[in-house]
């Protein structure tokens, strides 16, 4: 079952904040976040492995609530370079490898 992301799309002005949510109907053991710009390869942002874990890189951070089977990506003081489509990917615990089931995607547009 594919994780559902919300919102489907968001438009921000540079400097504004955004939150992207990822919800799964199946248990989440790990959550991987990627950003993909049009016509380009998905680029890794971060992996969250434990329930309740939070990670961050510069002004992008994420949380993982294992019990609620949800993860959220937080973009603070957005930059033009943040524009793209964000995908969460759910990883299995016993697959032994990175068989990710990607979410529905969230399109983010940051304007000047």
């Amino acid at each position, binding site marked *: 079952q*594919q994780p559902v992301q919300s919102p489907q799309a968001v438009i921000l002005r540079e400097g504004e904040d955004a939150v992207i949510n990822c919800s799964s109907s199946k248990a989440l053991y*790990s959550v*991987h976040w*990627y950003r993909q710009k049009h*016509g*380009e*390869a*998905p*680029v*890794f942002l971060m*992996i969250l*492995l434990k329930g309740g874990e939070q990670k961050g890189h510069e002004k992008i951070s994420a949380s993982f609530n294992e019990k609620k089977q949800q993860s959220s990506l937080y973009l603070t003081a957005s930059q033009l370079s943040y524009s793209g489509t964000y*995908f969460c*990917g759910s*990883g299995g615990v016993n*697959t*032994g*490898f*990175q*068989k*990710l*089931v*990607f*979410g*529905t*995607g969230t399109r983010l547009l940051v304007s000047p």
Partner: protein
Amino acid sequence: GAGVSQSPRYKVAKRGQDVALRCDPISGHVSLFWYQQALGQGPEFLTYFQNEAQLDKSGLPSDRFFAERPEGSVSTLKIQRTQQEDSAVYLCASSSQGLNTEAFFGQGTRLTVV
């Protein structure tokens, strides 16, 4: 190489034609994955290799799809008797060994079946 390289970048095939898509993973990466991405959708898992062994091919949509990685490095995804519904971007990704490690994606091959 510096990153995952895929070729060709674009491929137009007539319905019924066979195609072969190539992936050069990052040198030394044990794991290699193929994903299919339809327009406006997220990537969907097709198959996984660990070195030369194909450990999971559960995502291949039909027996017209075949993937190999004979020497544990370069991989080829072959689609026989292409159909219009095969039109998509085919992404290859590689990662070092280990669960929950970062995957590096190639730019993909955009296949259009006419």
